[in-house]
């Protein structure tokens, strides 16, 4: 199925999750169109990561739907959502700590190539998968660290590897959860460049949870604001940042500090 400009790559309809009496995400309906980078902002505890978890399948919604390219995937487990084109980089680095960087990416490439059930071939006989993984490591500037395991990589390199895994999955929707969190200042531009690069190539749909307003301002085409689990603002970056509700709910604090 080809996506017309009007079919959203991803849509949430009335997405809600309750933990006991607490409503972490409350009736969030939103459409994400191809070729757009949407930043999701909001104070800590606003439900941004929970919203991501509901979309990518780590959590099951209490009510509401997740729709990818017109297909309702609310009932599917995370692995099936991944195979339908949802790609997610995690906030806390989430890799295979003992395997080499190359093997981390190769596993993602292998999943994309649907080669996981091959039992009687030797894994390194699939040169194509290895070469593709090497190419992606080069793209994220980790080629020289291909034989190092993540547990021995710096935090910034681990984040880059996380992005590499996401690129390897070739998703239709890229979801970044605070990709620059905990990074040193000189490492941030590389990751932002990578995200910018993903946005430039093809018509990827990119969702980005980010705290740093300068990053949001420079990368995003659109900003949505979550507050106490509810969507409170949605629109062009300049317009959203200027709106009183955002100034009060979230940016006011930041502005006061800066």
């Amino acid at each position, binding site marked *: 199925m080809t996506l017309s400009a009007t079919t959203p790559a991803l849509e949430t309809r009335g997405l809600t999750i309750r933990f006991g009496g607490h409503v972490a995400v409350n009736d969030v309906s939103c459409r994400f169109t191809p070729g757009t980078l949407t930043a999701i902002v909001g104070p800590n505890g606003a439900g941004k990561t929970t919203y991501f978890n509901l979309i990518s399948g780590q959590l099951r919604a209490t009510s509401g739907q997740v729709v990818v390219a017109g297909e309702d995937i609310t009932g599917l487990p995370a692995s099936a959502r991944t195979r339908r084109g949802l790609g997610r980089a995690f906030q806390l680095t989430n890799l295979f700590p003992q*395997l080499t960087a190359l093997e981390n990416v190769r596993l993602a490439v292998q999943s994309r190539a649907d080669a996981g059930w091959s039992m009687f071939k030797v*894994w390194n006989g699939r040169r194509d*998968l290895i070469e593709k993984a090497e190419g992606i490591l080069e793209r994220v500037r980790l080629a020289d660290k291909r034989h190092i395991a993540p547990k021995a990589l710096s935090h910034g390199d681990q984040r880059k590897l996380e992005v590499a895994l996401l690129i390897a999955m070739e998703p239709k929707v890229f979801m970044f959860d605070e990709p620059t969190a905990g990074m040193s200042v000189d490492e941030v531009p590389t990751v932002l460049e990578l995200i910018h690069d993903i946005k430039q190539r093809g018509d990827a749909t990119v969702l980005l949870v980010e705290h740093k307003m300068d990053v949001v301002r420079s990368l995003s085409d659109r900003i949505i604001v979550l507050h106490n689990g509810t969507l409170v603002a949605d629109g062009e970056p300049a317009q959203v940042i200027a709106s009183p509700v955002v100034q009060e709910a979230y940016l006011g604090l930041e502005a006061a500090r800066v």
Partner: protein
Amino acid sequence: MSTSPSFALALPFDETRRRGGFFSTILSSDMPRSRVLSIILLTILLLLAATPFLFSGSQPVSTAAKICVFVVLVASYDLLLGYSGIVSFAHTMFFGIGGYGIAIALERMGPTWSSAAIGLLSALVLSALLAVAIGLLSLRVRAIFFSMITLAVASAAAVLASQLSDVTGGEDGLSFQLPPALRPAFRLLSEPLFGTAVNGRLLAYYLVFFVSLVVFLILLRIVNSPFGRVLQAIRENEFRAEALGYRVVAYRTAASVISALAATVAGALMALWLRYNGPDTTLSFSIMVDILLMVVIGGMGTMYGAVIGAALFVLAQSYLQVLMSAGSTALAGIPLLPDLIHPDRWLLWLGALFIVSVYAFPGGIVGRLRQAKQ
């Protein structure tokens, strides 16, 4: 964190380069990667291949056959424990199913090859079904619950085998006749070869040897396949593997089934060699503990560890008592010492050996040898 070379886990060689060659193909590109390890493995292989011609008497050959069977059994368990990170206590159940499959079929349907084939096939089917059932029911829950469920199922199977004495022979087990070609009276060659009679017993040994070798090489291939790599990824980070699009429950269940099938073949070989199967030879929980020890001593997550662990352990089981009895006699007259190494204390010394080896080689013998090379 520093990325200085001391922290870098750089590999001693580039494993992504596919090397041609006969050995690389046979060993699925998973070379021993240590000269000492290669020599040890080659020695074990050659000794096992030549045992009937090197040693006289029936005990050495029986020990060699038992090593062959346990190499398969331990390797198949390592596929679960070392490669997939699944702790199962039901492995002897599948071992037992293989043994009973052969025993019941040969006893009931007569000593022919076709009854052996039917027995083995039914055992394989039963094992596969049980492994799928246990896997689908419990591999989606937490690891500890899976272990408990396997423990319960294995105990139930052991009770069932001892209670259904009409079928299984109960505690006494089943003795049966082998097909004529595997009986001692059968002569393939009229003249002895290198001083050894080429009879059915010799054929039975080589049947055990070659089937074990082939099953081991298949397991080695599976752990080095794209599938095997997924198992290791799941062991490392199950959550991430799922997020990459791998259906974790399906992969784990498949690993359980493969492991169960190999254990079933091992049980069938054990029964064929002993011409007997009973609770104590294949089904007892003490065998489960032995398997665990062999995997850990040899090195988890390395198929070659199964070879070394099984060889060492079975040899110790068979000959430690003999050795200790000799030592005890030699030290007669000295106080305490003869008592300490009295043959009845062999389990104590085996336990001590185990503790020392786990302390000295946390990665098992294979892990230690490969590390020494770096």
